[in-house]
């Protein structure tokens, strides 16, 4: 009895360590990359930190949303399209509006896309059609809507709204306080929600083993729908960040498709296994920043741009394989 308890405690401690070491490792990798980048360029100061943190915002938000959905055992290939849809809606309706109105639109969009994606989660849960199929389809639909709302690049937003995400009303030259705050607050909120609330723990539970979770009396559907709602809200936040960064809207399909792929890459790199039930949101946050930093680093190293794309692809593929291997080993040892 005691021995059994002890061994399960050890196993728990081990998986806990494995989970947290990955997260810790990703943050260490990010710190190392930052230090390395600082040596590659002549000056590393406020401008660079602000630049990296604000440019990371869309991918980090998307990675947080994707992480929660993946932890719950799903995957959402429509997140990039939801970003696109928010971008188009925000740029179209925020143009020439006062800040108060812009904020109101932003809140409506976050809530609205949360509800919209909750509906998608509900459909997946009820129909039993795989997540990947349903979200692939809805992704095309949202991309189409985005083009319908904003047929060509344009629109705008309030300067104060740009300050909120970038620290400057023109979108450049501000301090890093606002972008880092805008990154940290949602990240920590979702992290706390996922680890310290009943809902968060049930999200982990259904991702780990949905049958066992149901037998244990958890409301599997509620947890699933909630994870998609958080994903949708985070995608909306990402779309708002893109409008704040550029001050315009850009409804091109490729933008959304790239964003989706990067969000999956960030989640895997962040230590959230695609089988669900493991990993921490905070790992995906660091991974998102790393993926954004790769471009300036490779460029500062003087690597030919065509090779840079290959290296970036290889890195993502390599990390995904390592992630898969770790999961496999974990499953074998369990």
């Amino acid at each position: 009895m005691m021995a059994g308890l002890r061994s399960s405690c050890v196993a728990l401690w081990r998986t806990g360590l494995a989970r947290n070491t990955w997260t810790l490792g990703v943050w260490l990798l990010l710190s190392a990359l930052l230090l390395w980048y600082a040596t590659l360029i002549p000056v590393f100061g406020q401008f660079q930190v602000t630049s990296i943190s604000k440019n990371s915002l869309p991918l980090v938000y998307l990675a947080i949303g994707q992480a929660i959905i993946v932890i719950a055992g799903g995957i959402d290939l429509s997140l990039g399209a939801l970003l696109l849809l928010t971008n188009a809606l925000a740029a179209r309706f925020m143009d020439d509006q006062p800040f108060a109105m812009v904020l109101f639109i932003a809140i409506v969009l976050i809530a609205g896309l949360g509800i919209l994606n909750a509906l998608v989660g509900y459909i997946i849960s009820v129909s039993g059609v795989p997540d990947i199929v349903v979200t692939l389809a809805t992704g095309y639909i949202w991309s189409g809507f985005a083009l319908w709302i904003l047929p060509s690049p344009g629109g705008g937003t309030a300067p104060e709204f740009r300050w909120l995400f970038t620290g400057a009303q023109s979108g450049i030259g501000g301090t890093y306080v606002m972008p880092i705050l805008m990154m940290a607050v949602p990240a920590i909120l979702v992290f706390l929600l996922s680890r310290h609330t009943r809902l968060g723990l049930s999200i982990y539970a259904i991702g780990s083993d949905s049958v066992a979770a149901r037998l244990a009396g958890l409301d599997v559907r509620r947890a699933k729908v909630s994870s998609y709602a958080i994903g949708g809200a985070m995608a909306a936040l990402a779309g708002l960040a893109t409008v704040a960064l550029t001050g315009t809207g850009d409804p091109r399909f490729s933008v959304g498709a790239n964003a989706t792929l990067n969000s999956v890459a960030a989640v895997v790199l962040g230590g959230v296994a695609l089988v669900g039930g493991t990993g921490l949101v905070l790992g995906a946050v660091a991974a998102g920043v790393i993926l954004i930093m790769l471009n300036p680093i490779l460029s500062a190293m003087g690597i030919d741009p065509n090779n840079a794309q290959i290296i970036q692809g290889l890195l993502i593929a390599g990390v995904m394989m390592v992630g898969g291997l770790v999961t496999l080993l974990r499953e074998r040892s369990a």
Partner: protein
Amino acid sequence: MKFQPTRLTVLTLLLTLALALTACVAVAPESGDDAMMEEEGGFVVGVSNTLVGNGWREQMICAIKAEATASGLVDSVVVVNRNGGPTEQIADLEGLISQGVDAIILNPTDREGLNAVIESAIAQGIVVVAVDQAVTAEGAYVATNDQTAYARLGAEWLFEQLGGSGKVVEMRGIDGVPADTDRHNGFNEALANYPDIEVVASTFTGWDPSTGAQQALDLITTQEIDGIWTSGIDYSVVEQFQVADVDFVPIVGADNNGFVEQLIQLADAGLIGAAVTNPPAIGAVGMAIALDALTGENPPHETILTPKVFTTTDPDALNAIYAPDEQVGWSTYVDIEPYTSYNGSADVSACTAPGE
């Protein structure tokens, strides 16, 4: 095997450090005036492009590199080249600023969306040149091809060829793209002066040779047509006349190598046509302007290139720009007086920046 790259990296790092230290020691005793003298040349130029795998854009980048090499004033060219929109380009431009480049040449994704980052670069003493498409940023240099004139000059030549009356086809690019809108306006400007010219069909080729070819085949086999104006989808249209065994009609295209070759070789078979230039070497023009600005020559802030028209009536001029070694899609008009200092298509095609 596993440790070799790490050792190499450490060695390189140490070597660089040592070199940097030596350089510091060597430079330190020099006076301010000497430092000013050294400003001439040794420039680092950043390039930002956000459409990868497009022939025209690749040639634009090669022209920038070739001009950098030919000028002798540039130490290195840093190209940031990936698919993306304004979000990615802002990040790329900030990366170039962080690298401490002396000048940035960009093909902008947005007319206004990049202004803040461009103005921030200018405020830090970086020369910024937008090529191909304009930006409205304060203090930026802009070098573009005149798209309205591109269409107007070609259309005027065509309407003259037809003696001011006949049925023509307008084969456009992509609906809604600024260059296509400008060209359509130019086409209509020319049309207004020729009341007896009738536009019997207007198509969107998407600037795709195979799409344009199919549309041309459908048109020439079903309708009576006296002339064709194309927005640069030209050689595949000419091929359809041969495929369908229909007599050639006067045709306007761009300075694509394949089209120029046809204009030379099919002249005896009755092909009459005009190649209007839309040079990707505008990138090299941008490089020349950037270097002028860096060396204190105060170039004008706006440079608009008026297209040249090469026609079958002047085969010598066509032969001069024809580049037998290049692909059909190669833009043959690469030497732009007085800006470029490299020598012809071969230099551009080599695509080597200083130090490469």
